[in-house]
């Protein structure tokens, strides 16, 4: 299955791209997307920083527009995942959050 992961604001800046398609298996979750698949495409410290920001509530994750509380949400083919700071904008956020 393919899911689209989109990044906003300083999340996009840290990752270095606005979006990418990720190929996942049936039954896999958001956690798999972050730890397994993003880990293949991005540097470890970037993925770690994103996870930590998520744990601290500074970065939110929404699947098809619904903000999720945990990364255990199972995914479906074509899901749109948005990784975004609570409000985005400006270079100063970038240094502070990461």
């Amino acid at each position, binding site marked *: 299955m393919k899911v689209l992961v989109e990044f*906003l*604001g300083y999340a996009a800046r840290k990752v270095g791209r606005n979006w990418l398609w990720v190929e996942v298996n049936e039954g896999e979750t958001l956690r798999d997307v972050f730890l397994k698949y993003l880990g293949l495409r991005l540097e470890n410290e970037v993925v770690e920083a994103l996870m930590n920001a998520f744990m601290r509530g500074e970065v939110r994750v929404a699947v098809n527009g619904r*903000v999720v509380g945990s990364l255990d949400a199972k995914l479906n083919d074509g899901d749109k995942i948005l990784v975004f700071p*609570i*409000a*985005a*904008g*400006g270079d100063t956020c970038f240094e502070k959050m990461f």
Partner: protein
Amino acid sequence: MGKLYGYAGRILRLDLTHRSAVKIELPYDMARDFIGARGFGAKILWDEVKPGVDPLCPENKMILALSPLAGTAAQSFHRTFAMFKSPLTCGYFRSTGGGFFAAEVKSAGYDAIIIEGRAEKPTYVWIHDDDIEFRDAGHVWGATVDGATEILREETDKNARVLAIGPAGERLVRVACLVTDDYRTPGRGGGGAIWGSKNLKAIVALGTKKPELFNEDLFRELVKEQIDVYKRSPLFDAFHSLGTNSVVYQFYTLGHNPTYNFKNTELENAEIWRTEVLEKYVIKHYGCFTCMIACGKKWKLTKGPYAGLLWDFPEYETHWSLGSTCGITNLEAIAYANMLCDKYGLDTISTGAIVAFAMELYEKGILTDRETDGLRLRWGDGDAMVELVRKIALREGIGNILAEGTARAAEIIGRGAEKFAMHSKCLELPAYDPRAAKAHGLSYATSNIGGSHMIGWNKYEILGMPEKVDPLTVEGKGVLAKRVQDQIAAFEAAGWCAFAELVQTAGYGNVEKTMEWMGKVLYAATGIEEFKDPGYIWLVGERVYNVERAFNVREGMTRKDDWLPERLQKVPFPRDPARGQIFELDRLLDDYYAARGWDAKTGVPTRKKLEDLGLSYVADELEKLGKISS
């Protein structure tokens, strides 16, 4: 009674009919019972504007009121609050804008200005400390806000602050607004049309006084705390760098930012609102008086037919009203039309909503080229939108009907147009869809000023802050809507900026600390003992909310007016994340009235509720009019 510290201690009554100005001492108990700003407006409107008054006749009044902290070093307490009977809703209205005007009025020595009567010919009022002059405005009548402001400053003082109307207000466009010299706008509700009906072009103010604070040391300490909390707030950087533009794209994804006049189908090219696109236009940051958040930005356009524009940027609501709800993703056209609204003095939210309404009527064939003088109002056409904004401002052609607002225009046009008028109590609904945020939508329906997003802006559902609440559930939403409305009424009685409250609450991580801090800083400035108790501050919020409601009840409003368009009640929301949702109005209203302690059938506050809030005199009058039983 005690001495009043912090406040200027005076109310200025301007009688335009007789060109007279009277200064009244601010009563101590009014300050204690209503704090200031929106609280003062609610109290004075209840006392002085009798039911049935035509909003555009001389008997209507407008109260401009400020915080007791206006002009002090407290951050973000320097807004102008305008309260009046609205020509749109025919009920109580409060509208608010930032800038420097309020702080200047405080410096001149006034906590509130009551505007009444009607001038015989175009007039402006020049307030210079204790000297008040009614001056001829014939030479600037008809001019845009910026044109008039420049001339008026030349003839008064270049450092004076100005609040003015443009051609739209002069032509009694029902969605016309007041505009400050730095283009902040107490925008909604048609306040501009009221000034137009009174032949009032502008108020120009300059002052030299400073209020005396009750406890300078405590005050200084609390402001230092405020600044620290702002700096560590997770929301500060975003507002500071991009203002309300920091949330446009996310909100669209989360189901807000409704498209196509609330049809809410997917909007192609919505990526245009990503922050990295919007920030490229910014060439300058600026703020209001004593506010370090400085969420104001200026844009410069370098391409397309509107290249060369250098103006205030469109806010979140404006990106929606002149953009998404019209299916428009042309940022240049949005920015240009935003500038026209500032110059002509038009509420961007209502104006854009009217354009979207007209576009849907055009799509359905209810409005044709014949009625629009050949202007093809197709969805997504930014240039057509710009032209229609101009026509509305100047009441030209179809603009003359649309200038009445969507509800009245629908009545005039007929042919089923009312199905597409997205309003509540005749105020056009702003950039959130009730089906995607239920408590927030419940505030749209129950708001004392009609379809307003700010009267009950639901940070819990929209931002998930200070705690996350699922926006799509229905349980407990009556209590949540009331809580948010009362908190907002309380901090608006204190004259605080809503964005600043968000920043500070995000910094503390909870609302209770914010309200406690606010009560303390009000006490430190004014010495009023009651303010020390945060429970009392919340009570004032609920009291103000109920006085506003009582004003509307006196005007004849009941449960039937707490209404939302059929599209929102019956048509399932078509896109994620709220796909399939409808707005369960009746169920949510029942829940809300129970939470409010109001009559379930009529939505009228009960005598007991009013008495608990110290409003027996309000209950007595409503009983005399047969609106409540004893």
